[in-house]
């Protein structure tokens, strides 16, 4: 079996993805222990929120501030966590994580304005069909770009080039997050089936 160059790249990619999964799992579990242990959550929706928010914070903190989406996500998720946060943040475990309050403060200076920039519509004279089709396609791209900006954390203030780069990174991180959570869910359900 010969390893083609692309195969070698794939193996490398797989190995780095595995280490990302491990990092994610570690940070996520630390977060759950920090945010979850001291509070008896009764409702299913509360628990679900905690799990999701700490998963998002874990996914974003792996980036170590290198991407815009991760910084925006940490800010958003921390704000959500503050609802549940008690004195759990003052203990040692909490110090290891970016604590919701300190991270929010750090990012406060980089706070992204959430107001949408609206382009004023300019009335265009009627054009030949070929140009019409092209401008329709352009408008479609603009519209879909805006949708993407809403989906990627912090996307509103990105230029188009950064948006695509951040999107690539965001999607790959989401895949890691989903993979780990899915494996854990299957394992957990399997164990509880007894």
């Amino acid at each position, binding site marked *: 079996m010969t390893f083609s160059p692309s195969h070698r790249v794939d193996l490398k990619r797989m190995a780095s993805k595995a280490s990302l999964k491990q990092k994610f799992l570690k940070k996520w*579990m630390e977060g759950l222990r920090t945010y979850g242990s001291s509070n008896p959550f009764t409702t299913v929706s509360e628990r679900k929120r905690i799990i999701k928010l700490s998963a998002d914070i874990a996914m974003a903190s792996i980036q170590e501030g290198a991407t815009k989406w991760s910084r925006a996500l940490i800010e958003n998720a921390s704000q959500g966590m503050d609802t549940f946060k008690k004195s759990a943040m003052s203990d040692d475990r909490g110090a290891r994580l970016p604590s919701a309050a300190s991270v929010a403060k750090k990012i406060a200076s980089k706070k992204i304005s959430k107001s949408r920039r609206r382009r004023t519509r300019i009335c265009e004279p009627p054009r030949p069909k070929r140009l019409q089709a092209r401008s329709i396609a352009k408008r479609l791209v603009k519209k879909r770009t805006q949708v993407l900006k809403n989906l990627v954390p912090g996307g509103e203030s990105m230029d188009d080039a950064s948006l695509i780069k951040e999107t690539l990174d965001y*999607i790959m991180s989401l895949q890691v997050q989903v993979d780990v959570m899915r494996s854990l869910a299957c394992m957990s359900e399997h164990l509880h089936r007894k």
Partner: protein
Amino acid sequence: MSNRRSRQPSSSGSSRISDDQIVDLLSKLRRILPKIHDSGRSSKVSKVLQETCNYIRSLHREVDDLSERLFQLLGTIDADSPEATIIRSLILQ
């Protein structure tokens, strides 16, 4: 993946990407997205954008569903549950 290209000044007018960047980034995107149905030339960009948005949305939904399925985990993190043991061994590798 923290390499940053020299940022183009984000003008308030047009926010166009250069063709080279489009080709490069689109190919990367296509590689990680589920199968896309390719259509005409001019609609390639918008098609990839749409597929991207749909994919992100589906990933969000999946995280949401999984968070719900995992709610049992919260109660067992600290205890000597089988999950906690397995998770600990996975993390310590």
